[in-house]
C-alpha cells in the first residue's frame, strides 16, 4: 500500500543559497529530472513523484507516494539520488550539510523530521515512523503496490 512523503525542506535565505536554488530550478528539467525518472522507474516502489519550490521560495518540497516502509524508502532515495539530495540539504543547511546527513541514520532522521503530516487519518490505520497514525491518503487502487499494478497495465 502507498504512503505519502511530504518533505518540506527549509531553504536558507542567504544569497548563495538562493543562487543555488535558482540553478537547481533552471537545470531540473535537463539534469535532475532524468536521474529521478530512471531511479524511480527502476525502484518499482514509487507511484508518483514531484518536486516544487514554495511560492515564497522558503521551502523545497518533495512529494511522493511510495510502497513499503519509510526506513527502506529513505535509504533507497539516499543511495540512488545522492546528487539531488546533496543539493537539497545544501539549500537547507549549507555546503557541509550533505557530509553530515549522508549516512543511513542521519538521512532517515532528517527525512522524518522534515515530513509534514497530511490532514486527516489513514484509511488503513497505517503508522508513521513514530508510531502515530498517518494522515489521509486517497488510494484509487486500494492497497495495491506499483509491482502489482504495472503487470495489469500490459
Amino acid at each position, binding site marked *: *500500500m502507498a504512503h505519502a512523503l511530504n518533505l518540506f525542506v527549509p531553504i536558507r535565505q542567504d544569497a548563495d543559497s538562493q543562487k543555488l536554488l535558482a540553478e537547481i530550478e533552471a537545470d531540473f528539467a535537463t539534469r535532475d529530472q532524468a536521474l529521478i525518472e530512471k531511479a524511480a522507474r*527502476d*525502484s*518499482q*516502489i514509487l507511484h508518483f513523484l514531484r518536486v516544487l519550490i514554495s511560492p515564497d521560495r522558503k521551502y523545497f518540497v518533495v512529494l511522493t507516494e511510495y510502497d*513499503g*516502509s519509510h*526506513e*527502506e524508502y529513505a*535509504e*533507497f532515495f539516499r*543511495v*540512488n539520488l545522492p546528487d539531488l539530495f546533496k543539493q537539497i540539504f545544501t539549500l537547507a543547511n549549507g555546503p557541509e550539510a550533505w557530509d553530515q546527513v549522508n*549516512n*543511513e*541514520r542521519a538521512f*532517515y*532522521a532528517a527525512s522524518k523530521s522534515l515530513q509534514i503530516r497530511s490532514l486527516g487519518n489513514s484509511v*488503513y490505520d*497505517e*503508522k508513521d*515512523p*513514530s*508510531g502515530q497514525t498517518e494522515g489521509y491518503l486517497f488510494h484509487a487502487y486500494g*492497497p*495495491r*503496490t506499483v*509491482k*502489482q499494478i504495472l503487470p495489469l497495465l500490459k
Partner: protein
Amino acid sequence: MGPLIRDNVQSLLLGASLHPITRHLLFQVKTKETGRQFLSDLLPSVSSGDPAALGTAPLLNISLSWNGLLALGAFDAMGGEAAAADAFYLFNQPPLAESLRAFGASAPANWWNKRFESTDIHIIVHVSVSDEDDLRDVTTRVSAAAQRAELRELVTSANGEPITGRAVDGFRLHFGYRDGISHAPVDWDHDVPTGGALPRGDFVLGYPSPNYSTYPDKPPFSDFARDGSLMAFMVLYQDVAGFNRFLRENAPKLAPTLPQADAEEYLAAKMMGRWRDGTPLAISPERADGTEALRDDFGYADDPHGIKCPLAAHIRVANARDQPLNSVNQRLFPGGYPRILRRGMPYGPLLTGEQDDGVDRGLVGMFLCANLNKQFYTIMRWLGRTDFSPVFPDQVGQDPLLGNGSFPGASSDFSIASADGTSTTLTRVTDFVRIRGVALQLLPSLAALRKVAAPGQA
C-alpha cells in the same frame, strides 16, 4: 582492530548453545537504583565466550531494551536520552509492524497475549541449561534477585511460567524440520574476514562492516556499544494442526502419483527448501538423503526457475545465496543478501495430527545483527513479500511458512514449478506462523553491563 576479546562478549552472540533448555525472563525496572542492583547481582553469572567451550554449566545472558537502558540511566553521563536517540538507529523505536508484516493475528496489539507491550520490557535474562534441575536453580536465583530489586516480571502465560524453550527430538522444530544447520560463519578476529567467513562488523557493534553502516558510530555511544550486538527477540506461534491439514489437503495436488505420506513429505520439503531431515532440495530435489542433510554449500544458479527448489521456499527467501537481487537492491546491498545470526529453540509440547489442542507452541528466536534496518527488517520484509529479486514472477508472494495473509496486497499463493514447464499453485488459507511478540534488545558487552550496573565504578 585486534582479535575479539571473548571475555567481553556474551556467549549468546558467539555461538548457539547446545543446551536443550532455554528460558527467557522478562522484567521491567521500577527504579534506576534497584535495576542496577539487579544487574550487579547477576553480573558474576553472565556467560562470555564461545558457548561450545563452556561445557554443560548453565549459561546466563542479559539483554536490555531501549526503554530499559533509559530506565537504568545508562545514558545519564552521555548526554541523556536525546543524545542517545541521535546516536542509535531504529533501536530506539518500537518494532516496526509494516516491516515485520505483523498484521491480523500477528499485529502488535495481540502480542505478549495482550498482557503487556513490547515497550514495557526493560531487561531479558536468557538462560540456557542442561536439565530441569539447573533450570529450577537458575530461575530461582534470578527470581530472587528480581524480587530484591522489586522488578516487575512480565509473564505471557496464564500459568505464570516464563517463556521456556525445550529441544524437541534433538534439533527438530514443531513442523518437523531439522533446525540449526545453516549458521553464518563469522571471522571474529579480523576486520577483513578470511576463508569466506562473514565480517564480524556485520554482527558485533564497534567494528568496521563493509556491508552496512552500523550505529552508534560516534563516542561515547560507540564505545558503550562495542562488543555488543542488536537483537530481535521473537516469540513465534506455530499452528501445527493447520500446517498438517494443509499438507494432507494439498499434497495430492502437487504429487498425485505418490503415496499420501510421501506426497506430504514432498510438499513440506518444497515449502522449506530442505527435506525435513535437512537435505537441501538444491542438492537432492527428489528424495531426502541423510548423507547430505547438513550441507550448506549450495546455490541456486542452476535452478533459475525454481524447479528443484521453489523460488519462494523459506530458505531460498531467507538467504537466496547466488540468486540475483533486483537493481535497486544491488545498490543497497552490494555485499549480497543480508545475513543475521539465529539462536532459537522450540517451546510448547509436541502435537501430531490435525486437531489443535489449544496449547501454545512455536519458536523462541533471537536474531542478532549490527544494522536492524538492513539485516533483520530487510529479511522480514522479503519473507513477507518476495519482491527483492527479478526471478519472482509474482512480486507479491510470500514465504509459504512465515507468510502473513493479512498483510495488505500480499498473495497467499505458493507456486511450485515442475520440470515439464507446468506449475502447481497452492493457496494458504491460514498463517502457519504468527508473531506472538517482538522486542528489540541490545546484547551489551560485559564492560557495558558493568558500566550500566555501577556507572561510578566503570
